[in-house]
Structure formats: structure tokens, C-alpha cells
């Protein structure tokens, strides 16, 4: 049997709230398939499974918040005899926090239907297994809430109309229907009015506040644990700019490359000779990574930032990296990232040149051990071989972990990066 645990989706995550299962017991899953959606403080993340198998049991329900490492589901490996179903024993710690939605299990079809009918699923009573909300429940709720509904109870004397669903629910919840504030047409009491009367006000999710706290925790840990050293190098960019302009001149706007992609590729290639900058520091030891999965710092419009990875940057052509970067930025801003992108960047690259700063000295994102920063490309008075010229140049910086590497090696990495950017056609 395989235990599928909630992965850590970054150093600043210690728990997650399961939003949705994308699979059901009995489903065959393939490694890399998205099986669940988990809400972290930063974004809703599509969580991928790391192994092929058959889903045996889903242990955590949508709405529940569990710590990282908690078992979300069990699977049988391919070829493993499906075991007789055991009673559902929860191997996890009790949920760290239980949202008001905990009881609301809803099938994808029912969710879609609710969206179409404009029904708030929070206020639907489920009739499916374990109180799950079915399409029929949604339809019933939609009819009950509809102003043209014939389901409205006839006004009985001076009493207000009450929908049957509302009356039933009020009975179940032991709520005096006369005390409920009505929102329906003609002063009718709707199901949702009854629910509202007993439910505490739904907490508004303070995404920005949570993200701020998550960044604070990760960066405090970084500055507390990692002895940073910082280096900077002025890199001439004329060759890269000229080459990029020539390449883009022949491309339609939809296929043009950005300098950010050229810089990412150069960093990945430079790292091949400096494995001590690429990997993780865990349990008092450095673990080098085989490939360069570069985290790309992306600022979010509403505030905060996120640094998901582009995988195997060193092995991909620039055109492909451009497509992947475009897709990554779009999905990061839409809040739709995959777990592998969140959990495994081996080094982060940040580019603050867009905001106009000359250089950036970054804070390493643990458990990574280095961060490369680029400032703005600016024209410099450039002295070379006794002659003065105007040269566009960028300050490339390195923040690295002194437990793992020394300044000498860091300097060589930046020198390698500078050389690679002088021959952009080879990237």
C-alpha cells in the first residue's frame, strides 16, 4: 500500500486545506497526474501524484486543513493485489483547523450545476453519501431559491411564506422559523435564510495577510539559519541585446523572446559547473540536485510574490523556455500552479530590473542555497583596452549559503554567467 501525503509546497507552507479531489477510489492514476487541489497561503495548487497506482481510499475531505506530511489518501501499487477495504481509519493528526465548508462534499457535476444555477453550495443540504451534495440537491435548492418557484409555501394567515426546504432545515436545526430574517420574494423564508441564522459568518479569507505571514516565516528562517554572502558582477549585454533584437525581428509578436529567458538559460548552464549552488540544504547536509529547476520570482498584482520552478532549464531551447515562462506567469497570477513547480526549485532567479533598480541582493529561499539576481540593463561608460565606449550592462548578483560554498566559487559562477551571456547564440 502507498500513502499519498500532503507534500510541502515551499518552505513557507506548514499546512494546506484540501479544496477538491480530482479522483475517486478505484481510479487508476499515473505519476504526475493532478489528483487534488490544495489551498496554501499563497495559491490553490494542483497536487500531482508521484507514483502510478490505484486509489484505495481518500482520507481527507474537502474543506479540511491538515499539516504537510499528513496522509491524504492510500493507493495500491500497480500489480499489487487490491486489498479488502479496511474501515476508514484516519492516520493523520486531527485537522488543524476546520472550515465551515468541512461538511460540504460536492460532486464536480453538482458544483458545475450550482455555478450555472447561481446557487451558493454552502447553503445546500447534501443527500448523498456522507452528506455529499448531488446534482439533485442543487436543483432542489435552485428551485427553492427561485423567485418564480412554485415551491413557495402558501401564506398561512398572517404568517410569512416559508419554502419546504427551509421549513425542513429549520426543524432539523431546531430554529424557530418566525425568528429568521427572510430574503425571499414576498418576505419568504428561504433555505439559505435558515442556514444563515445558525451559521457563524463565513470567515473572509485574508489571502494577502496569509501570504505576508508565509513570506515572513520563510525569509526570517532564511536570515536566521543561512549565513549569506553576496557578490555582484557587471555583465556587458550588448551581444545579448543585439542577438535578441535580430532574433525577434524575424518573429511574430506571439513568438518573441524576452531577455529574462536568455538570462534564465545562462544561469542554468553556468550551474552545471557549480553544483554546490544548485540543490537543497537539509538535515545539516547539502544535497546537490541533478538538474536545474529554476524558481522564477513572480510578483503578484495584488501584492506578494511566488517563485515556482521551470524544470530542466539547462536542457530546453529558448523558444520552449519562453512558452513555459509565459504559461507559468499566467498561471501564477491566476492562482493555478502545480505541486511540482512549488516544491522543487533548486535555485531562484529574481529580476527586479523591470522596476528600475540597478541591482538586487536577494534572500535565499530555504532549503535552496543560492539566489541569482538581475537588475536593470543600463548604458554604462565602459572602459575596455584603453578605449571608452557606451555599453549596455546589467548587474548580476549572487546570494549564496556560506555553509555550502565560498566566495571564490561564487565569483567563478558569476564569471561563467558573464561569459555565457557574451555568446547568446550558443544558449
Amino acid at each position, binding site marked *: 500500500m502507498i500513502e499519498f501525503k500532503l507534500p510541502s509546497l515551499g518552505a513557507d507552507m506548514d499546512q494546506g486545506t484540501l479544496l477538491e479531489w480530482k479522483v475517486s477510489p478505484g481510479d487508476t492514476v499515473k505519476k504526475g497526474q493532478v489528483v487534488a487541489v490544495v489551498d496554501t497561503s499563497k495559491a490553490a495548487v494542483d497536487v500531482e501524484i508521484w507514483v502510478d497506482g490505484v486509489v484505495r481510499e481518500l482520507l481527507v475531505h474537502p474543506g479540511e486543513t491538515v499539516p504537510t506530511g499528513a496522509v491524504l489518501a492510500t493507493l495500491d501499487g500497480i500489480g499489487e493485489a487490491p486489498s479488502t477495504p479496511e474501515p476508514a481509519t484516519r492516520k493523520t493528526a486531527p485537522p488543524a483547523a476546520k472550515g465551515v465548508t468541512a461538511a460540504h462534499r460536492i460532486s464536480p457535476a453538482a458544483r458545475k450545476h450550482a455555478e450555472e444555477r447561481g446557487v451558493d453550495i454552502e447553503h445546500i443540504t447534501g443527500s448523498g453519501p456522507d452528506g455529499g451534495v448531488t446534482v439533485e440537491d442543487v436543483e432542489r435548492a435552485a428551485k427553492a431559491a427561485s423567485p418564480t418557484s412554485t415551491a413557495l409555501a402558501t401564506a398561512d394567515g398572517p404568517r410569512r411564506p416559508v419554502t419546504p426546504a427551509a421549513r425542513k432545515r429549520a426543524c432539523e436545526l431546531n430554529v424557530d422559523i418566525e425568528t429568521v430574517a427572510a430574503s425571499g420574494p414576498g418576505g419568504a423564508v428561504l433555505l439559505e435564510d435558515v442556514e444563515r441564522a445558525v451559521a457563524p459568518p463565513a470567515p473572509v479569507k485574508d489571502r494577502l495577510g496569509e501570504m505576508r505571514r508565509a513570506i515572513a516565516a520563510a525569509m526570517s528562517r532564511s536570515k536566521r539559519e543561512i549565513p549569506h554572502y553576496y557578490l555582484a558582477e557587471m555583465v556587458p549585454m550588448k551581444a545579448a541585446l543585439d542577438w535578441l*533584437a535580430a532574433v*525577434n*525581428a524575424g518573429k*511574430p*509578436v*506571439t513568438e*518573441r523572446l*524576452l*531577455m*529574462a529567458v536568455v538570462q534564465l538559460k545562462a544561469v542554468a548552464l553556468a550551474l552545471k559547473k557549480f553544483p554546490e549552488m544548485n540543490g537543497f540544504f537539509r538535515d545539516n547536509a547539502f544535497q546537490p540536485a541533478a538538474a536545474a529547476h529554476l524558481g522564477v520570482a513572480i*510578483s503578484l*498584482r*495584488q501584492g506578494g510574490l511566488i517563485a515556482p520552478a521551470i524544470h530542466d532549464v539547462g536542457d530546453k531551447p529558448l523558444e520552449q523556455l519562453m512558452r513555459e*515562462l*509565459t504559461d507559468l*506567469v*499566467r498561471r501564477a497570477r491566476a492562482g493555478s500552479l502545480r505541486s511540482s513547480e512549488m516544491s522543487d526549485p533548486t535555485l531562484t532567479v529574481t529580476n527586479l530590473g*523591470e522596476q528600475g533598480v540597478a541591482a538586487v541582493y536577494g534572500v535565499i529561499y530555504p532549503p535552496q542555497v543560492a539566489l541569482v539576481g538581475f537588475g536593470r540593463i543600463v548604458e554604462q561608460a565602459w572602459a575596455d583596452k584603453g578605449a571608452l565606449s557606451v555599453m549596455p550592462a546589467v548587474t548580476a548578483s549572487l546570494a549564496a549559503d556560506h555553509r555550502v560554498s565560498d566566495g571564490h566559487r561564487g565569483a567563478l559562477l558569476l564569471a561563467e554567467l558573464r561569459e555565457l551571456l557574451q555568446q547568446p547564440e550558443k544558449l
Partner: protein
Amino acid sequence: MKEEELRATVIATLKTIAPEVEEGDLHTDKPLRNQVDLDSMDWLNFLIGLHEKLKVDIPETDYAKLVTLGDVLAYLQAKTK
């Protein structure tokens, strides 16, 4: 294309990149990228959006001409005539 129609298309495209933009807050004669905080990825996506809606090609060498919203509108007006 009518001027108002073009302006509406440009603003709508901008809003797909920067949903928080209020048209009333935009100064036609000030640098657009500073006002809306567009990085080069946003800028490229903005141009791709205009390319798809208006079927105009905007070569990279023309980027320097497109500083303010007014510049963008005048450039597109000339291109879509």
C-alpha cells in the same frame, strides 16, 4: 476604426493583463508602463492581445514609439486605417 472603438479595445486588452486598471485614472499623455506597472512579460502579452484583436503587427523596433497611451492609440490608428 473609430477612435472611441479603438480606445475601448485597447483598454479592454489592458484590463486582461491588469484587471485593477480604471480607465478614468489613466493619463493619456504619461508613460503607460509606469502608470500600470507592466513588466516586459505584461507588455508582450498586451501587444499579443492587440495583435489578436486588431490584426496589426507591431515589430519590436517600434516599441520605443509606444510610450504613452496616446502613442499607442495614434500608432494603432495609423496601422488600422
